[in-house]
């Protein structure tokens, strides 16, 4: 291979692609060159001088973070001279740095601490008074303590390049330089906390976590963010069963170290004071706390009678519960209660897309492909607000691979600024005609990913795919859906037309609006959803059972409310909007609440429904893998935190299209349906509740 060069690092011969930075080449060979300002994926800064190395035939030490490898280069990364230089750099950095690590929030996880530990700069020749500036709070999320800052500019770059926000800057010069927020004394930004987590020292700290605990007192549990449909991995720091932190510093999972404000800080609903911790039962018109057994006995009396009398039973599934729970729920409804009326709040036309793609394989894009595709078209979504991780992938693709981005939206979006062409389309019909006008542009790219929101549904999906086929290049699609397991809910058959795996149901049941409007609905069983937020049931004497974390509008109308666990309190799997399956890990536990799966298992027993199988997540996942088309994903990949793509089935999905039922909740960066209302952090930022399309 002509473009490989051979070099020697610490006596070890290495080969690396031409143009590779020395620091990366060394890392690939397992040689770690220390760095503060260098950060993979961000622009080069060469500000900190920690990465200095000795290069033969070069008189001065060289910064490995900006030095491309060259043929025959001979490098020493830990020579006496190098070690001395690093020690001096550290002595300078510590000259003005507070030496109060025992009370610093970053203590134990601080890169400066680690470096000093490694190279030692225990004695300082600096005897002058330290230059002090007071700590500042820039938002409920972000705090800045200037004296701790080592001016690596990671925060500035991640905000500008990674987030596309550019809310942080630098003021003054030299030793008195400080990081400053965009609004003088405060921030107006995404409040994502990326700057905080990327800070190597304790200069930036978060309002959520600062001074709550020491890092070694937590257990770190990697699970999936419970908010939007992008499926980011978030690592929750748990102390005494309570979540105190969310981040993803190990850069694992599909999202690397990306998380938006919801994934990083929107976990506090888990310990919200209004969490339900006991079942409630309507007694004399009032919901009152009762024991689990009392609630289950009541269900065991009521439901079999309704079933025996042939009453209509409506079942509503959740976009926030696991695949296993949704799969079990549809079994509970169809096989157990014998009803075909099962639905959930649909937010994207996944079934329509799978149908339109019949006969094609490899036509669904993964989150990785948004980072590698040559061109991306975003239709009808304010991606940075509604799907922050997908937007991040596209931005990174532009920065690193100069991908061409096209947007067709009803108003300006963040992606507009990086778009090759950004067109405004006020209406649905204008959207497709605008897309057609881009045909010649799109044909120039070897591969195109089309990401579309709820504006494209029903017959428009088919038209979209026909347009894609007409381009003559490789086209893949992403059908955006709102929540963490909106996709899994359809895949698992929580849809009146569809059995698991997009098999048409023998008889289509009532849709959710039909259940609500049905005057003779006898029972309404709602899991983790708020369909009665703004309306009551038409049927006045339906028996309503609600499984939820909070007393939502729907729960308030219930006869029985069963307190359920959040996604952070259970095991199982979820499927993100791009169809990638990931495993959850139970992080927290809330007394009194049970997982939806446990609740359904108990209810099935109380109602004496036989043949549903064990309500055990692992067993159900096995069943899903063997019986749901597309879900035969490799277990080892799942078990090790991978996100394999479900292989979508290849034939038609021959059901009635119901585009009128597909409606995104239009959540912003700072809202998350009913759940978002219970996150104090999300609601406390100035930017909440946010807005779409700059309106």
């Amino acid at each position, binding site marked *: 291979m002509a473009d490989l060069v051979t070099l020697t690092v610490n006596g070890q011969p290495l080969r690396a692609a031409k143009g590779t930075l020395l620091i990366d080449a060394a890392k690939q060979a397992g040689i770690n060159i220390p760095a503060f300002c260098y950060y993979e994926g961000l622009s080069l800064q060469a500000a900190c001088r920690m990465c200095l190395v000795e290069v033969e035939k070069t008189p001065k030490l060289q910064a490995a973070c900006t030095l491309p490898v060259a043929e025959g280069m001979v490098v020493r990364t830990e020579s006496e001279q190098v070690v001395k230089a690093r020690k001096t750099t550290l002595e300078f950095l510590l000259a003005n740095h507070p030496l109060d690590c025992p009370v610093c929030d970053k203590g134990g996880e601080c890169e400066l601490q680690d470096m000093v530990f490694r190279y030692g700069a225990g004695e300082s020749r600096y005897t002058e008074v330290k230059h002090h500036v007071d700590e500042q709070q820039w938002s409920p999320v972000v705090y800045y303590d200037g004296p701790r800052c080592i001016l690596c500019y990671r925060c500035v770059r991640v905000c500008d390049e990674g987030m596309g926000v*550019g*809310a*942080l*800057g*630098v*003021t*003054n*010069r030299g030793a008195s330089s400080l990081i*400053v927020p*965009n609004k*003088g004394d405060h921030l107006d930004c995404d409040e994502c906390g990326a700057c905080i987590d990327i800070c190597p020292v304790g200069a930036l700290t978060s309002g959520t976590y600062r001074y709550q605990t020491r890092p070694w007192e937590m257990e770190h549990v990697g699970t999936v963010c419970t908010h939007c449909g992008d499926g980011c991995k978030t690592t929750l720091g748990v102390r005494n069963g309570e979540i105190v932190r969310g981040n993803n510093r190990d850069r694992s999972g599909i999202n690397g170290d990306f998380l938006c404000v919801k994934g990083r800080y929107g976990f506090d609903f888990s310990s919200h004071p209004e969490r339900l911790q006991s079942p409630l039962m309507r007694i004399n018109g009032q919901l009152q706390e009762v024991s689990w057994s009392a609630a289950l006995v009541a269900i065991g009396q009521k439901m079999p009678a309704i079933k025996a009398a042939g009453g209509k039973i409506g079942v509503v599934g959740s976009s926030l519960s696991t695949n296993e729970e949704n799969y079990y729920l549809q079994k509970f409804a169809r096989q157990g209660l014998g009803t075909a009326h099962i639905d959930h709040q649909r937010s994207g036309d996944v079934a329509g897309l799978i149908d339109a793609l019949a006969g094609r394989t490899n036509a669904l894009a993964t989150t990785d492909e948004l980072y590698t595709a040559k061109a991306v078209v975003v239709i009808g979504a304010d991606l940075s607000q509604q799907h922050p991780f997908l937007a991040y992938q596209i931005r990174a693709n532009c920065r690193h691979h100069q991908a061409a981005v096209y947007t067709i939206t009803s108003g300006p979006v963040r992606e507009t600024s990086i778009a090759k062409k950004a067109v405004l389309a006020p209406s649905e019909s204008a959207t497709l005609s605008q897309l057609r006008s881009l045909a010649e542009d799109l044909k120039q790219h070897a591969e195109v990913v089309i990401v579309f929101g709820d504006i494209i549904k029903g017959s428009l999906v088919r038209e979209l795919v026909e347009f894609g086929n007409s381009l003559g290049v490789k086209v893949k699609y992403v059908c955006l859906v709102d929540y963490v397991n909106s996709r899994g809910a359809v895949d698992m058959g929580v849809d009146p037309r569809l059995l698991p795996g997009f098999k048409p149901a023998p008889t289509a049941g009532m849709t959710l609006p039909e259940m609500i409007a049905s005057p003779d609905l006898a029972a309404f069983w709602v899991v983790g959803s708020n369909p009665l937020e703004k309306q009551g049931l038409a049927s006045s004497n339906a028996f309503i059972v609600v499984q939820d974390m909070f007393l939502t509008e729907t729960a308030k109308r219930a006869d029985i409310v069963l307190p359920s666990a959040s996604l952070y309190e259970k095991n199982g799997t979820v499927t993100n909007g791009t169809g990638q399956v990931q495993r959850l890990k139970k992080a927290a536990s809330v007394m009194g609440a049970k997982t939806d799966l446990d609740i359904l298992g108990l209810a099935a027993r109380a109602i004496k429904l036989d043949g549903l199988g064990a309500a055990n997540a692992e067993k159900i996942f096995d069943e899903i893998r063997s019986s749901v088309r597309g879900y035969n994903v490799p277990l080892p990949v799942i078990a090790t935190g991978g996100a394999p793509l479900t292989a979508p089935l290849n034939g038609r999905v021959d059901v009635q299209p119901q585009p009128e039922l597909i409606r995104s909740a239009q959540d912003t960066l700072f809202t998350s349906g009913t759940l978002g209302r219970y996150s104090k952090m999300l609601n406390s930022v100035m930017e909440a509740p946010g807005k779409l399309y700059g309106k």
Partner: protein
Amino acid sequence: MKFSLSTEARLAQLAQNYPPGRLKGAVIPMLMYCQDEVGYITPELAQEVATRCGVSTLEVEEVVGFYTMLRKQRMGKTHLQICTNISCLLTGGEELYEHACKKLGIGHNQVTEDYQISLEEVECIGACSWAPAIQTNYDFHHHVTIEKLDQIIDSLRTK
């Protein structure tokens, strides 16, 4: 924000020195010209320059924070800068600075009550060959003595 016709003309001329869409490079001179008229960089001025150059206000603020010649507080009609860097120091620059402090009754980066004169102790202004050197706005004065400094200050006051 609108400036006087002459400043606007200067800004228009300036803009022509840059290729279209590359006005970022004009931020510093534009700030200087605007400061000449307004006296210092107000938040509105920073915002105006940002808009005109197509950069964020924060980026302009960064530039203002970096360069001491760009000032965030109102200074005197004449800004008197006395160099006390090495060449000037050896030839009496510090004495000049102390004399000016006493005479004007103000210190480093301060301004007289009538906003006529402000004072700044500066690093090398690139006039070492003619040290000690001082600067009044854009004008240089070479081989300055205490007497010459008195004359300069007095002439500024009578203006």
